[in-house]
């Protein structure tokens, strides 16, 4: 797989093996449906205080869930624009508009966190550098976590070099 910036300066992934393309297409799947146990990690408690946790559950978490869903919709639309090459083993490509990078980062992160929690990967497993292993559902899930991490790293570099696009960008110092 190859990563570069397109002529318009957007992240562009090309020469993607069909297996990886299939994994990437799965990023748009609803993690709450796909990973019923692991998706609990996506809405953590805000602390130990009972009242705070109750209010968080009632008033904040529904908004966060809507935010994650709307970011996933953006990603799902980009996924439909993935292009399949020609040949015996057609390689795929995908261009991500710079303005969509934050939606992608959030969605990729949500999938990685839900997958890791669902399969209870250890820190050691997550940091091991091994050849891809397709022998079990669990090893494929670990490969997916690592592949999404690669995409995330590429997008973080783009965002850091080109600046943030989000309207939520704001500054604050400790008070």
């Amino acid at each position, binding site marked *: 797989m190859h990563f570069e910036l397109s002529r318009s300066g957007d992240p562009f992934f090309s020469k993607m093996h069909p297996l990886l393309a299939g994994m990437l297409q799965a990023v748009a799947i609803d993690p709450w449906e796909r990973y019923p146990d692991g998706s609990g990690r*996506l*809405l*953590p*408690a*805000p*602390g*130990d*205080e009972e009242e*705070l946790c109750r209010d968080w559950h009632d008033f*904040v978490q529904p*908004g*966060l869930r809507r*935010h994650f869903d709307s970011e996933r919709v953006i990603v799902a639309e980009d996924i439909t624009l993935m292009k399949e090459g020609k040949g015996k083993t057609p390689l795929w490509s995908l261009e991500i508009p710079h303005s969509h990078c934050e939606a992608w*980062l*959030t969605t990729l*992160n*949500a999938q*990685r*966190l839900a997958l*890791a929690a669902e399969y209870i*990967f250890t*820190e050691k497993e*997550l*940091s091991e550098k091994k050849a891809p292993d397709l022998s079990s559902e669990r090893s494929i899930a670990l490969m997916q*976590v690592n592949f999404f*991490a690669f995409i*995330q*790293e590429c997008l*973080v*570099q783009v*965002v*850091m070099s080109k600046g*943030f696009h*989000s309207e*939520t*960008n*704001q*500054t*604050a*110092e*400790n*008070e």
Partner: protein
Amino acid sequence: MGDPGILESPETNVSEAYDTPWIVVVHNDPVNLMSYVSMVFQLIFGWSRERAELHMMEVHSKGRSIVWSGAREKGELYVQQLHGHLLLATLERASP
């Protein structure tokens, strides 16, 4: 000592409790990428890359880092934003 012209009510005490300093703590998570955590700190707090990386490394090496302190309401907003980027963050009362 309070103003002699103002009665102190229980409501005042509740308000004071809310004004007690609170801290926002980010906790280590082996899944979140270090570069991503650093980026989120820069995005939310407007920090320099160097400062963001210092806090990110503190999270990584010590398991947690205090990223903000102040009034509860604003702390809640920061925790919400950090959760919006899927970081493990909590709001805690500052130790006296």
